[in-house]
């Protein structure tokens, strides 16, 4: 963090140009300030889903550099989704994965539904359970980036999610190549039906506009970074790729893409002056790789993706000082590393700017972040057995969808509006209706029966959450630790006092200590447990409804 100006000087200086200058005091230089639970929690909230105290403590102990190294060490890929409520497949049973098997030919509808339910639940469970690992946040970043929806085949979706997980912080250029011929992408943006005689421009347009380089400002009737002609020529270069076996009911088949020589345009394609009139000679099955390489020769690609990473991890406003002080050095790092994402991310996440107190907590939670932050805080994903874990994950998925984020169906190829729509960005997640939906979940999480399925109630275990804290019987420390765990910045004393008033209305501290100790000593006394938990829930209710809980 840069020099702090005395407050009186700031108010004197606040003309609009000066204000710009003030913001630019943040820089990409390595952060060397204090490393406490606030900074560590901030880093983990942005790079993982809803870290708990255990992970935040671990990061504090590791220090900034080691924490980032740990974050970027992806480790083995997560285990694939499993059947949890469908046992009619001839070759598979509950607890086994379906990702390498055909759909049950005798029961395709039910099997398809079961796979989607399983995928939904797995998505929530997997993203919640990473520890200090950036993989799932990046997986979602890429999912939003490529915006694929519209096809319900769970295997196809799983295949591209697995690619995102595998690449995560890997080589961006390679990922674009992979996705260009992904079987689902070929369907999503019409590559499948694009031929030399009738090239379809859909993918060619989006790879430029949304996936790699962006339009840049409109100039006359065309764009800064490419022209309509380039769209036409690229469309020809991508012809010939098709996909098959999506939703297959045949053993041994899996969704795949393949190249059909006679559908491919073998002419030499010539790009516009934006690409220095580059020529793309016929290269058949390998031509798409040459095209991607050609696009990536434009430095604008590095700036385009770094802006998107910045908005995702830091804040949506990019002024000139951020552009020159943050985006440009990140883009340089990205190019220096041949478009491998990791080093540029390390630079951003280690920077003074990232730890500026203005940045800590300045992102309104996405529905995914919001649901995780409640489900994880009450340890709801761990139900003790596979079936109930998946049922819990599936409940979370539906909540996320109710809040305006259908994970399997991005609203368009541009992804969710909250990540690109000027001027509101993340604020678009919240309106009077979605605010109510979020509060509805708070109500569910605090009601006696929580969610119910298969005839059983599954309450959220808020008393269990207390075991993460050092001395849960001491109310002041317990409140301090819980607010530090669940909120990005410290509350002011009167907010803390109000929360405590909810826990202990007009009562002394020792009442909580005594009641809590009594409950620990008599764990099987349900009445005792209920009365302690009810007091705690009053406080949690106040905490989860704070405006501060909507940001991270």
């Amino acid at each position: 963090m840069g020099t702090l100006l005395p407050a009186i000087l700031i108010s004197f200086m606040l003309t609009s140009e000066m204000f710009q200058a003030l913001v630019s005091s943040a820089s990409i230089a390595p952060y060397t300030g204090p490393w406490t639970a606030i900074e560590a929690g901030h880093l983990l909230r942005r790079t993982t889903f809803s870290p708990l105290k255990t992970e935040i403590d671990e990061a504090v102990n590791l220090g900034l550099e080691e924490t980032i190294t740990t974050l970027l060490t992806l480790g083995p890929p997560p285990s694939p989704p499993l059947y949890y409520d469908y046992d009619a497949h001839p070759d598979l049973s509950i607890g086994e994965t379906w990702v390498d098997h055909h759909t049950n030919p005798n029961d395709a509808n039910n099997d398809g539904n079961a796979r989607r339910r399983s995928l939904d639940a797995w998505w929530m469970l997997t993203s919640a359970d990473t520890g200090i690992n950036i993989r799932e946040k990046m997986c979602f970043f890429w999912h939003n980036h490529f915006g694929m929806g519209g096809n319900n085949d769970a295997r196809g979706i799983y295949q591209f999610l697995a690619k995102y997980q595998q690449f995560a912080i890997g080589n961006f250029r390679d990922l674009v190549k992979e996705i260009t011929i992904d079987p689902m992408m070929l369907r999503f943006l019409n590559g499948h039906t694009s031929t030399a005689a009738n090239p379809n421009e859909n993918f060619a347009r989006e790879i430029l506009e949304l996936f790699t380089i962006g339009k840049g400002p409109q100039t006359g009737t065309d764009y800064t970074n490419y022209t309509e002609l380039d769209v036409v020529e690229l469309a020809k270069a991508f012809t010939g790729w098709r996909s098959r076996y999506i939703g297959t009911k045949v053993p041994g088949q899996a969704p795949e893409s393949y190249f059909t020589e006679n559908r491919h345009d073998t002419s030499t394609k010539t790009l516009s002056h934006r690409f220095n009139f580059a020529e793309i000679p016929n290269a058949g099955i390998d031509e798409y790789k040459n095209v991607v390489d050609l696009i990536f020769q434009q430095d604008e690609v590095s700036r385009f993706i770094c802006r998107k990473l910045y908005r995702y991890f830091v804040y949506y406003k990019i002024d000139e000082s951020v552009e020159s002080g943050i985006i440009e050095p990140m883009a340089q790092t990205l190019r220096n590393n041949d478009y491998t994402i990791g080093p540029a991310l390390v630079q951003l996440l280690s920077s003074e700017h990232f730890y500026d107190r203005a940045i800590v907590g300045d992102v309104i939670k996405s529905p995914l972040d919001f649901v995780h932050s409640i489900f994880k805080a009450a340890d709801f994903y761990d139900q003790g057995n596979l079936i109930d874990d998946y049922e819990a994950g599936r409940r979370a998925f539906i909540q996320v969808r109710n809040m305006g984020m259908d994970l399997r169906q991005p609203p368009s190829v541009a992804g969710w509006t909250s990540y690109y729509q000027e001027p509101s960005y993340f604020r678009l997640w919240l309106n009077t209706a979605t605010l109510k939906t979020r509060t509805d979940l708070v109500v569910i999480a605090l009601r006696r029966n929580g969610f119910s399925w298969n005839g059983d109630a599954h309450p959220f275990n808020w008393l269990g959450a207390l075991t993460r804290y050092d001395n849960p019987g001491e109310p002041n420390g317990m409140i301090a630790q819980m607010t530090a765990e669940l909120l990005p910045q410290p509350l002011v004393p009167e907010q803390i006092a109000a929360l405590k008033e909810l826990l202990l209305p007009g009562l002394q501290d020792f009442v909580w200590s005594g009641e809590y100790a009594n409950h620990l000593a008599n764990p099987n006394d349900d009445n005792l447990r209920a009365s302690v938990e009810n007091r705690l829930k009053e406080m949690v209710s106040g905490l989860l409804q704070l405006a501060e809980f909507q940001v991270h």
Partner: protein
Amino acid sequence: MNRRNFLRTTGALSLPALLSSGVAADPAGFFSQFINPDSDKILVLIRLSGGNDGLNTLIGLDQLENLHQVRPNVALPADGVLQLNDTVGLHGRMAGMKDLFDNGQLGAIQAVGYPNQNRSHFRSTDIWTAGAGADETQTKGWLGRYLELEHPEFPTGYPNETFNYPLAMTMGNVVSSTCQGTMANLSVVVNNPYNYLYIAPGGDTTLPENFYGDEVSYVRNLISQSNQYGAIVQETANAGASLATTYTDGTLSSQLKNIATLISGGLKTKIYVATLGGFDTHSDQIQTDDPLTGDHGDLMEELSASIKAFMDDLALLGCADRVMGMTFSEFGRRIRSNQSNGTDHGDAGPLFLFGNCVQGGVLGNNPVIDPEVEQNVGVPFQYDFRDVYGSVLVDWFQMRMATVQSLFNGGFTYLPIASGCSSVLATSVHSISAVGMEEFIDVQWHTRFDAPPRGFTVERSEDGRNFRSIRRMAADVGGSEQYAIEDRDVRKGPLYYYRVKVEAADGTFSTSNVQIASLRGTRQGAWAVGLPRPNPVSAESYIKVYAPEDALANFELLDAQGRRLRSGTINLQGKMDNRVPLQPAGLPAGHYVWRMTTPDGERFVRKVIK
């Protein structure tokens, strides 16, 4: 906000003791206390989501035979139509709306749509909710633009002491795009007004002036708005009442019942949007054994019975004069039915207005059904939906004409549809019509009186507002009931408005309602040319061209180098969308320009890719 209120637990809704419990029992008395009678008009929109089959809703009696030829599997039998007058009837399950029609409380407008009709649910809904043209980009809703005239800063500073109620309300879960404004949607979403979830306000503690503080403050404001609106909605719902017992168990009834309750409770919200879904009747819209049953019939009954119950309720509650309702749907359906006993996406469809102040009757002619009509043809529009919107704003919300003109790109044409309360109506004139012929406009009226009047004055206007006398006539002492004039002092182009002023035997004056007509052959609307679809082009690709009158247009097809490859003339039928095929066979792959020039020299250029 004091500190004790700073955190509240869920459900701890505080109800300020604004309304004593006795008030709700006497809603009429309640209004005189709380509502400013000068600004208490309410508009209720009912969106028929999915595209209503207008030809099975408002049925031309003279077209029944042809309807049976082109849609034999879905057309209604003659005895399944409720006759409204000599020429038009309603679907047989719309008895409630027929009652309203008979009382002069229902106005039907034939074939409402727009040039270059879009048949996508999403896009056409955007067009209808934005009040925009088919090719116009308009991110705000038509009612959002209207509300922003008065509330340009919304949501900053709302709710406040004066406007402590939602400016508009959408019933259900999803906010209506009709009320989208610049920064926010001006309508509040209410699903159950009795159960508005209170959210802990989150306090007014000081926040840092930085990004973090900005975002937390945004959330706090939203919570506060939600709560304040929520509290007042719940408060008025509890204070209000619903007295009608004829609501159905359906979704529209429950929404309208909630609206009636909120109105009776004194909520000052001016605009409500209700939705009835299920109109996308591609299959089984009727059951073959009884054409009145089936999905579409059920919807007609829910629509009709709910509106009737709502009007009854408002009358019992003493607020019927303050409420006007309007239906809309993103498109009508095709003239021909499909093989699945359903109908596919079409073009224009009828629109209904209801309330004590609508001009009752049917505006427009029955869509003519050609028994040889092609499969993909919809009903061409007679009235532009923006003309309906603009007229409602002018007459119902008493907006200045010029202001409303500025809300719609290209303005609108005033239609006398919502002006039933703006003059003393002559009960002695029981019908008046104005019909455009080749050379003159034929104005006819029928009278019904006990004592013969002294005479009539026929008045004409070119804007629907300023009338001048064009003919005076003495009443026929012989007791004739039928009068007619031929107005020849008219020209092709304008729309003329006519009314008849009656001087009664006692010297008092009253006027008939207003009728509109223009000479035959008058142009309607403006040229509109769509984009090539699909593009890149295939053998089926076409461009939709709306021509305001019969016309021959010239077209050219140029290649990327500007060479003219083809040219010719297109014979376009007036006042409807024409599909002009592109026939790209024989063209090599590449970029082309399709150019069309109208007889007036207006030029349209479209990019074509093969």
